[in-house]
């Protein structure tokens, strides 16, 4: 059982491949994601048998079958509920959730926000392709307003979610974003997620070449990405663009973020906002999560927020153990008798 504390074997990527070859369409972004996950797992300090992958339903949710760990491919949208029960029941396990934008945010929205709120130590990876892949191309809660899909041939009338903003609003203690094609960056973010203790949300932009191809080319194309992506690092100034000349500054008058060019108009690097992912107050993370919605601003990737608090399972077990020490080991007869009995002779 997981509780025995024998030494950790030395793992390689292969140790986390189930041997079943993934059933995703050729060119699907899910391939590169699973590749990174399998690369990171050897170094997360958990035994293979103590790691569990839980998913809902969707292309992305086929993930557990391809991992050589314990896994559950559950019901559409419900993965966080299973994961929460498992983690509270057995805190020593490392529990990952793999889900899609429809799975996590459409039918699964409630379990998602509650997992974030409770601060149970669950590592949720959301593969966001802004479409329903498995069912062949319907609008999702992250599809753009006006998006034409099989169920919205005239365009979607609904504003989409901004997933990191939703997660922050729900109380997640870890919130990050990366991209399928940014392998190295994704690896780093996954490692950070693995190290965090608490509710953990990682949005991964994922391309669906079949039903929503090119959803992210505007920020991932070689030619544009240096200007389009803001790579956040805790404790470092928020710089981006060619030669890191551009920066994010805080405008105290308007209480808003703005883009500045270092060296222009007397702007120096120290005017640039230094990223602080560790602060308890979620507002800075929220500001950054909303950055890309404003024209002229880059899309932040990396860790928005990473704060530590006691997890729900820790608090739960603290109470259980307190009760056990207080009451001692009551035998079954005393349990059954309770406090108010009488005797019939």
């Amino acid at each position: 059982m997981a509780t025995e504390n024998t030494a950790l074997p030395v793992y390689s990527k292969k140790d986390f491949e189930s041997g079943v070859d993934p059933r995703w369409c050729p060119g699907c972004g899910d391939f590169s994601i699973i590749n990174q996950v399998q690369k990171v797992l050897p170094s997360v300090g958990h035994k293979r048998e103590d790691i569990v992958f839980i998913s809902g339903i969707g292309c992305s949710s086929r993930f557990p079958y391809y991992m050589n760990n314990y896994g559950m491919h559950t019901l559409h949208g419900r993965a966080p509920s299973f994961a929460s029960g498992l983690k509270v029941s057995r805190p020593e396990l490392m529990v990952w959730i793999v889900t899609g934008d429809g799975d996590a945010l459409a039918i699964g929205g409630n379990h998602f926000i509650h997992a974030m709120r409770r601060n149970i130590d669950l590592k949720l990876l959301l593969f966001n392709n802004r479409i329903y892949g498995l069912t062949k191309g319907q609008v999702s809660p992250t599809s753009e307003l006006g998006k034409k899909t099989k169920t919205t041939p005239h365009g979607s009338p609904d504003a989409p979610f901004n997933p990191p903003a939703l997660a922050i609003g729900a109380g997640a203690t870890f919130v990050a974003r990366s991209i399928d094609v940014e392998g190295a960056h994704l690896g780093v973010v996954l490692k950070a997620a693995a190290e965090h203790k608490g509710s953990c949300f990682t949005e991964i932009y994922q391309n669906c070449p079949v039903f929503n191809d090119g959803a992210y080319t505007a920020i991932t194309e070689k030619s544009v990405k240096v200007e389009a992506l803001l790579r956040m690092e805790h404790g470092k100034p928020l710089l981006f663009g060619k030669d890191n000349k551009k920066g994010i500054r805080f405008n105290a008058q308007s209480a808003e973020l703005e883009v500045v060019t270092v060296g222009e108009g007397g702007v120096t690097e120290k005017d640039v906002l230094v990223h602080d992912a560790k602060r308890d107050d979620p507002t800075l993370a929220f500001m950054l999560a909303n950055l890309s919605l404003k024209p002229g601003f880059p899309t932040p990737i990396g860790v928005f927020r990473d704060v530590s608090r006691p997890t729900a399972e820790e608090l739960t077990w603290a109470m259980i153990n307190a009760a056990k020490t207080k009451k001692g080991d009551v035998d079954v007869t005393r349990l059954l008798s309770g406090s108010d009995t009488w005797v019939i002779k």
Partner: protein
Amino acid sequence: MSTPSKVQQVETVTIRFVGDSGDGMQLTGTEFTRANALAGTDLATFPDYPAEIRAPAGSLSGVSGYQVNFGSKEIHTPGDAPDVLVAMNPAALKTNLPDLRPGGMLIVNKGAFNAANLEKADYKSNPLDDDALKHAYKVLAIDMSMLTDHALQGSGLSSKETARCRNYFALGLMYWLYSRPMEQQLEQIQKKFSKKPEFVDANQKVFKAGYAFGETVEVGLQRYEVPASKLAPGTYRTVTGNYAVALGFATVAKLTGKQVFLGSYPITPATEILQESSYFKEHGVVTYQAEDEIAGIGSAIGASFGGALGCTTTSGPGLALKAEMMGLAVIAELPLVIVNVQRGGPSTGMPTKTEQSDLLVSLFGRHGEAPMPVIAAQSPADCFWATLEAMKIATKWMTPVLLLTDGYLGNGSEPFKVPAPSELPTFDVKYQTTPNHDGAYMPYKRDAKLIRPWAIPGTPGLEHRIGGLEKDSMSGMVSYDGMNHERMVLTRAKKIANVIEDVPDVQVYGKATGDVLLVSWGGTFGSVRGAAELLQSQGKAVSHVHLRWLNPLPKNLAAVMKGFKKIFVPEVNNGQLAFYLRGMFPGIDPVQFNRINGKPIKIVELAGKVLEVL
């Protein structure tokens, strides 16, 4: 001065205490129940709360009641109609008088019958001045308010506090009427209010005043005594059905040494199970209040995948929401117990009223072919045993099990004989720790009984994946092969059919053949058994079998039914068991008796219906 009236022995009595939500009738009822329990009578109780929200004081919708039926013979129900009604205000009288048996005793707090209260109960005139009342019942109108005030003169209590002691006057009087020893109640008050000493003294005073009133009252009052019943010797306590389920969870955790994980969401009338379970932490019960019913069962299934004994508790609307999840538990073949405390339906229906209308949804309420064992408890104390049985089946057969109780069982109470450890079932819950198929682990490779192994996270080398898609009959990997699917559907069905080996035969109460066989299930046990006794005592060829197992049905049921001219099925629904029996036993066509009024069936009414078909 009063002539000490001699005590008359009676076999059983049904008493109902009714008053405003603020009058403490639940306390009075439970305390008086305790007195009779200690006196060794058998008993059954049923509280009748007002609709969820607390209504304005004195209003009709604010009436709260507690009925207890106790006797020297075996007691099956809280009683058809009260022999004694204790009414603390006009609203309580108005709403409950119709139930009092003709000629029964009516004790009222005259002091509460003022203009304001009469108006709230929309009485045009004071019913106590109505001669008809006096002719129909033995009326004892006492100004308990005034007498309580007297008793507490100089106690320094506020009039509000004084008013809260009134119920002890009624209790004292009942103690005297039913010849129960004062002392134990005085001690009990001592215990109960140890934190508020001023109330110890006050309540004791008022209690004594009530008792004394019985002796001193001018009208020579008839005193009664209900002797001890022939309950089996042993240690007893009273339990409600909801408490008994929670106690069952804790007991299973103790017996198995495994964690019982209860993932649930509050819903009337099942909420108490979650509440009570949260006090059993030290025994190995982990409770998790989920964000909704779906997450409640989901968390339990997740915990079961991790090796815990997953449970979830709910009532009708919640059961409906759990349907998809139950299907997953069926196809994944994980142990899980779903407790459904039935209430009045459909939809939100009648949350605080009892009903038996979830039988068919329990049997068939999942899409696809998704059979699971279904068990129903028959009395408040039996909820404990039924819980142990459900947990045992779930863990032995790797299957979800549906346990049905209802609002009447859940809130009702009766004596529970504390079992000796030796009387408890033995569990042997095992996890797979080694490969089962030349070096590999095949999660769906079955034993002779078609049970699959249970390997849990943390077990090296047995890593595997399961899910809701149809799976290969060995590896559990996704399979779209049609013949594999057919095989799996049939195998899952066969496995549940195999559970029959753990289903006891039904016992016939009465002769093995005759004119009418009463067939009941779940919470109607008491009413139907009572009717059977009554009819048999009248020499009728009527027998009774009660179904604890709904799926699989007991082996001998078909044969037993053949022994009777007529099968008679009384239910608190529109005929669900009757339909099910027709479907399962071609040729069987039961006579139905259905009451759907939110209350347990009355013994006398049922007996009458049976007589009609005899």
